[in-house]
């Protein structure tokens, strides 16, 4: 079973894993109030257990700058919801500022057991496959080695082009917390955290997909 994004994020938040603030809204008024509280620009999307690739089906609106934009997005999403999944929730989040994007995945491999994959995320993940693997449980030194195995790490750490530099301690702490989380949650079979936005002062999970038993 695929958990809806907002439920997955809730589980992560409870485990003290930094997640982008996510609010489910039941009406446009609520959406507007949340957007004002968070501050524009915001993101609005459908959160559902039925479909995975939100962007492909137009269920994500990024970089909403103002109320008219919000109105338009809300109308589109409610229409889509009626067509695809009436149980889907509409969620609002602040738009994450530009940062280095990472991917962390968890799987329960049939012969290797619990495995963590970590690497460069976002849209380039499948193209470059600049990733490292370790079995869980793992030590901090293992996580540190994973970072050093990434081809892109030295440049991202220093701040690549217009992206802010990445603090390794935040990344390590994030990896440790995610490992701790999955070791306690036997019911989660697989997990994709992508993208994780990394900044000098924090690393934040922006999207999460979980498959449960």
């Amino acid at each position: 079973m695929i958990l809806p994004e907002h439920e997955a994020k809730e589980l992560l938040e409870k485990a003290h894993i930094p997640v982008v603030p996510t609010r489910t809204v039941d009406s446009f008024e609520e959406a507007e109030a949340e957007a004002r509280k968070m501050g524009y620009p915001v993101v609005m999307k459908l959160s559902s257990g039925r479909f995975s690739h939100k962007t492909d089906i137009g269920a994500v609106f990024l970089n909403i700058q103002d109320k008219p934009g919000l109105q338009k997005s809300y109308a589109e999403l409610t229409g889509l919801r009626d067509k695809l999944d009436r149980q889907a929730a509409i969620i609002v989040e602040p738009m994450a500022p530009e940062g280095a994007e990472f991917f962390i995945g968890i799987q329960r491999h049939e012969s290797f057991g619990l495995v963590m994959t970590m690497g460069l995320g976002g849209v380039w993940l499948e193209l470059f496959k600049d990733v490292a693997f370790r079995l869980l449980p793992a030590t901090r030194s293992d996580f540190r080695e994973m970072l050093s195995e990434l081809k892109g790490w030295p440049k991202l750490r220093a701040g690549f082009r217009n992206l802010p530099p990445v603090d390794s301690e935040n990344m390590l702490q994030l990896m440790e917390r995610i490992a701790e989380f999955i070791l306690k949650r036997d019911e989660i079979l697989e997990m994709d955290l992508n993208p994780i936005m990394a900044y000098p002062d924090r690393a934040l999970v922006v999207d999460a997909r979980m498959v449960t038993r």
Partner: protein
Amino acid sequence: MAISATMMKKLKKAFDARRVAIVGASRDQQSVGIGPVMNLLTSSFQGEVLPVNPKYEQLLGRKCYPSLEAIDPPPDLAILLLNQKLAVQMAEKAGQLGVSAVTIIAGGFKEVGSGGKELEESLKDLAKRYEMPVIGPNTLGISSFHHGMHSIFWHLDTFPGPVALISQSGGVGTALGQCLRTMHCGLSHFVGAGNCSVVDFSDYLEALCDKPEVKVFCVFIEGLQDPRSFYETAGRVAARKPIIVYKAGKNEEVSRATATHTGSLTGEYDLYRAMFRQAGLIEVDSTRDASVAAKALSMLPLPGGNRLCALTFTAGPSIVAMDKLVGQGWELPDLSSATMEKIRFIIGEKTPVEIQNPVDLTGPGFLPHTYSRVMEALLEEPYDAYFLVWNYNRLIRLPIPELEELQKRTTKPMVLVLLANQQEAESYLSDCAARGICTYLTPEDGALALNALLTRRQLLDRCS
């Protein structure tokens, strides 16, 4: 998979076997049935060689028994040179008789499909019932060289030494053994893991880990049934003794269809490689590299750090080696001016060469006395390891006694590259090995040896 404690005890006994039965032994030089008996007889085995074959009354000078049950008390190890069906029946009998362990040489089990799979299951079942470890099936067998228990059925020329070889393939195993022999490095044990139906890699590692004659493990894997359990055992063993691993089958297609990206990103070899690294194993890419690394780790102390010094009298081989060394974590700090002066004094003012690290002496360096005096000076500098190259010339004496003496005075590893051909320099290579001078024939091999030492140092530092 981990066998029970009783089975582990019996497995250890098999490695120390004093009484070895060979069921289906043959006199026929063209038959594999002669192999184990020949190996045992030619290896100064002090124990009892007990061939079993109702066809003969004696075999190669030993009493030949008509059946396994005729041997009383039962042997420590029974090597079954029978077809797979007969072998399983005989294994059952061995279990009943209380034989400690059996080796099943024959193939024709799970690796041939469904019929073989059933046979393998019945084998596993009887092994469990009698708590009797079964080595293989589909294997060359096991040998323990320090007490002459060389009982694999194929030919392998080696001598008692520090490397325990555990190989899933007999062919690769013997290739590794022969390659090590060529490098004048002997074996403590040979293990043909075969199908690993009952006893697997983790069990062999555990059975041999405590033996003082085992200095290094060299492991060849095609595929593991239980990678996670191997990871745990290998991790524990690697903390104590170096494990070099060579893995075949790197091109597995990723065929898992999953709801997440995670699964589709992961190739099986990716996980093996990560697992080896995480467990603290040293992974290599070839038979030769495995042998080079095993030899170095069995002979040399580990460096205290990554400061490398090189000494040659022609610069090329050093440059070639640096390509392989510098990217792997070694640094080449400068010489102190005091040492530069010492070297200048030794080679003379007129020698047109700049003295720096890597040290190249050109002309005067050809002379063993000069070369070794410079080496003596370099040993006093705070380097952690040394890379030496000597170009062989049949008219010029090698500085072997001097290098042996210098090596005795230091705890820092020295790797010597002797640019010669194996045949011509055989007596020198043999001499170096006897004197504990770690020697290779190419700069690349020398570099790999040093890298293996540094990797091991880094792995140990990681644990602490």
